[in-house]
């Protein structure tokens, strides 16, 4: 994971050399909804539906800087694996145009599909030795619900964003978004499928802005 994280970090920097020069930082805390049930496993996340609203459990938020940014020629592929009959990670924010692979790490069949208007696809049934690894490119921004046709309880979320600047909070809601361009932007946070909060931000180079989402 650490290797992957570094790769992703390098990729961002290699794609956006401007960001290296102008690096503004936003950090703060998102007030996450109270978790009603204690997590079964500390590190295991699930997607729960309540009243048609999808969110992670325990709650996690995605903070991203909204705006029009030039599209890169290519983007590194991301991955949502199926392991122990869950999606890993359970919530994946990606920039639009990103290819996401869905490796099956279980010993059973999975059939990943999505009926979400943003991206409809059906990967069909496959096992872990399936090659090439089934993948989809997510072009349009929006929330994609991942399901498995065989394991009805499996849910995963892919949040497709227009921006390259996004980060997931920790379970306490703390976040830090660095390497941001200076200028007027809207800082948004996705809390669940129905709740997105936003705040206008004035970013200046070399400055660290503190923003809290109540």
């Amino acid at each position, binding site marked *: 994971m650490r290797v992957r994280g570094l790769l992703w970090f390098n990729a961002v920097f290699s794609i956006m050399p401007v960001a290296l020069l102008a690096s503004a930082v936003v950090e703060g805390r998102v007030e996450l909804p109270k978790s009603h049930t204690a997590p079964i496993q500390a590190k295991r996340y699930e997607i729960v539906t309540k009243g048609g609203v999808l969110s992670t459990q325990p709650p996690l938020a995605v903070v991203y800087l909204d705006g029009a940014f030039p599209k890169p020629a290519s983007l590194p592929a991301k991955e949502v694996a199926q392991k122990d009959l869950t999606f890993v990670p359970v919530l994946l924010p990606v920039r639009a145009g990103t290819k996401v692979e869905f490796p099956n790490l279980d010993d059973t069949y999975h059939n990943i599909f999505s*009926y979400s208007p943003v991206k409809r696809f059906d990967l069909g049934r496959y096992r872990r030795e399936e090659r090439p690894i089934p993948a989809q490119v997510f072009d349009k921004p929006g929330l994609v*619900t991942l399901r498995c*046709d065989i394991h009805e309880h499996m849910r995963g979320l892919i949040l497709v964003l227009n921006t390259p600047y996004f980060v997931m909070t920790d379970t306490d809601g703390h976040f830090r978004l660095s390497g941001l361009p200076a200028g007027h932007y809207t800082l948004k946070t996705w809390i669940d499928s129905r709740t997105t909060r936003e705040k206008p931000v004035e970013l200046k180079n070399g400055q660290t802005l503190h923003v809290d989402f109540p």
Partner: protein
Amino acid sequence: MRSAVQARDEGVASFRTRLFTAIMVIVATLTALGFYLAQRKVTADAERNLQENFQAELSLLHKLEELRHAALADRCDVLAAKPRIHAAMEDNAIDLLYPSAKDELRDLMEGDEPPPEQAAQSLHAKFYRFLDSTGVVIKPPNPYDVGELDAKTEAQLALSRLPDTQQIGYIRENTETGGGTIDEVIAVPIFSSYTGDVISALVIGFKPLELEEKNAEVEMRSGVWANGQLHLPSLPKSAQASLNEKIASAVASSDREQDNFRVNVDGTPQLLFYKRLNPGSLFPAAYEISIYPLAHSMAQLHRLRWQIGGAGALLLLGGFVASHVVALRFSAPVKKLALDSEENRAQRKRAEAALVSTTQELERSARYSADASHQLKSPVTVLRAGLETLLTREGFKPEVYEELSALLHQTHRLTGVIDDLLLLSRVDAGHLQIASTPVNLSQLVDEWLDDLSALPDSPDVKIEKEFAADLFVAGEKRYTSLIVQNLLENARKYNRPGGLIKVSVHGNARNVVLNIGNTGRTIPPGENIFERFHHRSTPSTASGHGIGLNLARELARLHAGDLCLVRSENDWTEFEVRFPAADGVNAAA
């Protein structure tokens, strides 16, 4: 008498009429009651039988439907658990709902329509639709796959809200032929496997299961009444229309989910049953309708009526005969009784009349005797006075005096007879009262014996006396004396020359008995010498006027004593008079 017989006959006849009327009334009442009860029973039986039949058919239908419903519920649960359905519902991909369900429900729509007997198991649907969260039908992208419906029919599938449980409904589907068919629709809720909420409903339309008309004996026709429309294809349209209104009003007026009533279809009486097919459903109320012809029970009733009527007539005839017989049997003793009482009455009347006339006669004769005696007495007195005057005159020849003297004696006799008669008449009339005083009988007898011997024509008889002095009897001296005189005169009169008269008196504290016996001719047995104006049958020189003994006895009896003949044989005739002794006097003496 004639009218009495007539009246009696009329009485008997009216008794008979009343009896017959009573029997007729009873029989008529029984017959009417029999009619009523039979009618009620037949009607009730018929209704119960038909009701049972209806319920049995219906429960069979319900069992089949339950099978189908259970199968459907299972299918829907499985369906609802499918991630694709959920995805379609939850991920705002309604357009993918039908395609997703298509594979799952493929078998519902495929294949030919099964034969009716397998309809329940086959789950062969005509169409299906999904309802969205507000209960509105989600339009299928390709109606051909899910069974085509026109807009009007499809609109009937919508519900006011999503149901928690299976809902059964009946909708009318208009067909090209214009007849229209009834579809049974079942709405099954789809629960979210994550939240447990109802997220949708699947509405599946079937050809309704039909009651099998297997019972040939009961010609049942059944259909469905739904949405205010009757669907009973075997009935002509006009009949359906008229029935439709009746069912609508019956359903509207009654809270009951099932009932029955009589209707006329094609001019024949029928029993119509209805029962709610979908109680508590969100779909409009639908009723199973079955009509049964009542011809069978009517025929049975008709037959039974004839039987009861015949029985009633027979009973009436029997009653007529019985009333006659009974009336005759009853009337015979009544008749006899009437006759007897009539005779009794007549007899009594005759007896009463006789008694009255006898009494009157007796009174008249008593009065006559008294009157006659009185009337006779005065001329006798005049006659005697005349004779006595003549006797005192001188100058007649001696034989004239003798004759005059005899005549005078006869006047005395006549006076005696008249006195006796007068006394007797008083006794007869009951007017004679005894003033009872102590009378010295011994002295009285002595005096009369002296008089007797002093009589001029007394025959040569010897007199024996045997009594104590001063024996007192209770009586009136006049009449006691008369009794003694009568007996002594008789004893002298009927004696023979040289004969004997024996007089004895015995007494005790209670009675004094006087016995007077005389020699001479005896009284023949059987001759009633105490009869008034009795004369001895045998010729005799002695003469009496025939009332002496009678008078003596009457007087003795008036004294509470008696006079009787003790014996009359062997030249000896003896009378005995019993007097009551005077109180205390004899004892003192």
